[in-house]
């Protein structure tokens, strides 16, 4: 699926919640629970995105020109948010990632999460994903192969 096809899927998924903020939050919590465990080798301070309230770890790997991301957080809501980002970006071409307009955030009324950088690091997660595409941190090919 293309990035926009995945975004459209997410938009439809959230639209079914009829703008009920509590339901939206519960859905995000559910997504957080579904986030695959981050390989321990990546859950290191080097991959920590520091936000005011929560810790988010995010790492990137590239294989056959496609990007793969791994993430974790100490808060379930941040895990849910990063889960959405990984769903959109995992397995995508690096140029497509850089050129993406993340419209699902606005359409799903998730703007409350990106309104302030200090609140939960959602902006920082997006920045880190794009940064890692431009300047991918080195991970050994053996590690990537063992994970993918």
């Amino acid at each position, binding site marked *: 699926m293309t990035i926009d096809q995945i975004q459209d899927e997410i938009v439809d998924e959230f639209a079914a919640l009829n703008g009920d*903020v509590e339901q939206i939050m519960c859905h995000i*919590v559910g997504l957080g629970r579904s986030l695959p465990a981050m390989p321990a080798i990546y859950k290191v301070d080097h991959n920590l995105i520091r936000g*005011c*309230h*929560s810790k988010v770890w995010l790492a990137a790997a590239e294989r056959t020109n496609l990007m793969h991301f791994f993430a974790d957080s100490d*808060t*379930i*809501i941040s895990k849910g948010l990063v889960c959405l980002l990984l769903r959109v970006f995992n397995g995508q071409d690096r140029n497509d990632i850089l050129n993406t307009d993340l419209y699902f955030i606005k359409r799903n009324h998730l703007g409350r999460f990106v309104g302030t950088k200090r609140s939960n690091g959602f902006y920082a997660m997006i920045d880190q994903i794009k940064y890692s595409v431009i300047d991918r941190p080195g991970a050994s090919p053996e590690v990537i192969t063992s994970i993918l």
Partner: protein
Amino acid sequence: MNVIDAVSTLNAELVRTEFPLLDQKINGRPLVYLDNAATTQKPRPVINALADYYLTYNANIHRGVHTLAEKATAAFEETRETARAFINAASVEEIIFVRGVTEAINLVASSYGLTFIEEGDEIIISALEHHSNIVPWQWVCKKRKAKLKIIPIHESGEIDIEGFCSLLTSRTKLVAIGHASNSLGTINPVKEIIRLARASGAVVLIDGAQSGAHVDIDVKDLDCDFYCLSAHKMYGPTGVGILYGRRKLLDQMPPYQGGGEMIMEVTYEHTTYNDLPYKFEAGTPGIADVVAFRFAMEFILQLGRENIFLHEQDLLRYATAKVGELPFVTLIGTASEKVGVLSFIVDDIHPFDIGQMLDARGIAVRTGHHCTQPLMKTLGINGTVRASFAVYNTKSEVDELVDGLRRIIPILRP
């Protein structure tokens, strides 16, 4: 005052009608604002005073000779007198307008601290302090090669007075301590601390950020040297606060910032400084905000500080019992004397998640370390959920908080 037996005559539902902001829905539900330790909402008289200033008599103060300038200056100085009376200072010269407690502490640290603290001297703070009552003293200690000492606390979040006594030495030059803890609510025995510190020859600064709207303040009775207040935590505007300083000390202290207003005469070679309090008030202040601050203090006085205290104590007792009995909840800070602050953690749930889920239900609380990272480290936790009460809060709002927690804890528990 026996808070168990005394009853507030205050009608919170009536008080609420003076706060237009409270009458709104957040995420489809009535707003329950329980983040008052961060900032309080503003009553109509304060909002009206701000509008009235800009609508009818905005002008720069002190130097103008025209009618508007005279009116603005009079209103500005009227707040100074109200503030003097509010904390029972000896004279208006002892009332310095600042941006808030943070600036007040920085002023004392920069002016008094760097002038009078010498190598080998000691500054004492407590383990309960907000970062704004830690960092400025760290700077002074670093610059002057002085030592920063920390008063330990008991598990309840109360100051260890014996521990404090053991820290006091002949080299202790300054003790800086909060009147009440922003994270735990503990009301510190400041009168006793001031007595002990002054007996040992130290100067004492009290951070009143969390006490200004909640307890009676009498700087003469306390016998402190400095007392700091933030208007925005007292139903007043943001960006305004008060530094009370004992006149004898203020006279000895050099100015904090240079500029207009604080000078007597300037030549290229030399500057002489203005009298107190203007020596410490360089530049054009937030005039409208200072003017409106008077109405916030008058609002508190009209309701009655004892009434407000009793009402908030009633809410605190109710909330402590209701939240404390919830499964998986641990209350953080169980001092016998507290302002209306209820901090808690929930097993296996990050405070941030609780705060976000409560917000979805229209309930505003604060989560995190509350700018007291060393305290959180002392307590062995990353942060708390903090509900903090003001005069307009009601028991039904506490019920909303409890209902919200009952609903969201099972959702968030792994």
